[in-house]
């Protein structure tokens, strides 16, 4: 490992300034290709951070590592003050085992580009699966929770339909309800509107819009919808070539980008729409 020895990383983050999510020198490689190069990123509790950038810049990998779908090759990720990718061991942090991962990822929920609803379950059953199987809720409680969330995303009338009978926008709204049913502290949205027809993206973005500021939920979002990112983000990070090239408030980044690559990317995106 070329990064700092893991003895130098704190076993926990505490204090009023402790972020909800912290990436510390996080590196990710696929073979010889370095997708993320020593990433440092803090997300505060309740903050909405959007990641933009050209494809292949490592945006989605950030979310996938945080969801523990991808192991990391260097550095440490902390969530809610505790290490996620590692756990306390002798002489410092050691790589997390399956048990530690399972305990810590309970804080995180994720929505995917292609929804990934369970096709053999109805909308409501999709929302009940995690609460019943993982959180140990009674079927009655899980049903109430699921119905409430489906109501919130405007899908209450479709609760008994299987995903195959729902449109993309409807499936994505169910997927958001399913993730929220686990009561995560951090929600990840990975290009949730990219697979949708343009006329239905609004039904998904409006659901996410309503989540901002509610329940003190911390959110990370990867999106290509610049207008949406600008509207709802507290902070926007522009990724380029596995690094954060530039970050700032939406106004700073979109109106007054400092880096040449950011300017190029934004003007290219503006031309496309």
């Amino acid at each position: 490992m070329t990064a700092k020895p893991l003895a130098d990383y704190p076993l926990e983050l505490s204090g009023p300034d402790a972020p909800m999510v912290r990436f510390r020198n996080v590196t990710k490689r696929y073979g010889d290709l370095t997708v993320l190069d020593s990433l440092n990123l803090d997300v505060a509790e309740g903050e909405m951070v959007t990641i933009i950038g050209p494809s292949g810049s490592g945006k989605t990998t950030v979310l996938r590592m945080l969801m523990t779908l991808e192991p990391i090759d260097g550095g440490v990720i902390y969530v809610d003050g505790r290490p996620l990718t590692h756990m306390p061991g002798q002489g410092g942090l050691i790589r997390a085992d399956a048990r530690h991962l399972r305990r810590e990822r309970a804080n995180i929920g994720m929505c995917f580009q292609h929804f990934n609803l369970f096709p053999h379950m109805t909308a409501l059953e999709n929302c009940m699966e995690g609460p019943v199987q993982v959180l140990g809720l009674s079927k009655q409680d899980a049903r109430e929770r699921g119905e409430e969330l489906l109501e919130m995303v405007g899908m209450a009338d479709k609760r008994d339909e299987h995903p195959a009978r729902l449109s993309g926008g409807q499936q994505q709204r169910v997927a958001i309800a399913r993730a929220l049913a686990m009561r995560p502290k951090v929600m990840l949205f990975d290009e949730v509107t990219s697979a949708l027809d343009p006329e239905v993206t609004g039904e998904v973005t409006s659901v996410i819009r309503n989540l901002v500021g509610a329940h003190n939920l911390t959110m990370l979002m990867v999106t290509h919808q610049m207008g949406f990112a600008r509207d709802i983000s507290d902070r926007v990070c522009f990724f380029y070539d596995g690094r954060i090239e530039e970050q700032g408030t939406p106004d700073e980044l979109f109106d007054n980008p400092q880096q040449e690559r950011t300017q190029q990317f934004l003007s290219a995106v503006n031309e496309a729409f």
Partner: protein
Amino acid sequence: MIGWRWDFTLSILPRLLEATLNTLLAAGMGYAIAMVLGLIFALGQRTPIKPLTFILREFIEFIRSTPLVLQIFFVFYVGPQFGIRLSPWTAGMIAIGLHYAAYLSEVYRGALNAVPRGQWEAATSLNLSMRQTYGRIIIPQALPHAIAGMGNYLVGIFKDTPMLSVIGVAELMHTANAIGAENYRFLEPFTMVGIIFLVISLPTAALVRLFETWLRRKLGMIR
């Protein structure tokens, strides 16, 4: 000796039908063993334990590359040399169960691989355990992919049960052969065996197709 004799046919029918029950029993038991063992073989190959996956892989290839009759003989006749004395039924069920387990494990393997990776990721994002992920998410979705192949091998194991006659399992073929030898007439018993196999195989294949459609609909995977 020439010409079909209906009176003889009718007289041997009860014995043949009784033997048909044994054939069905052998096929059913063998298939039940194969379904369970096959799943164990398929899941075993998906573990990260390299020696286990290697051994299972080679074992399955070995079984698929050697004749069933040899395997039946092997279990029945070679076993006693090592002090393992099995009845024809037990030896036959082990041999045919293992044989078809190897084939079914390949069906399962393909079906499990057909479940999109996104389903695994969704299961992880909901923090389901490995057992819950397989049991509640992956296997139910793999099942429709497996049914057609499983149906083929169900008919296959049924048609292969006559091989058990070589070690003296009193199934249909064994009985027909005995009737023929007793009466010096083989036309009627063997013809009836063919008809009985046909009458059972054809509807089974059709039922499997119906079951597949029903299952897909029940799982909400077709509109």
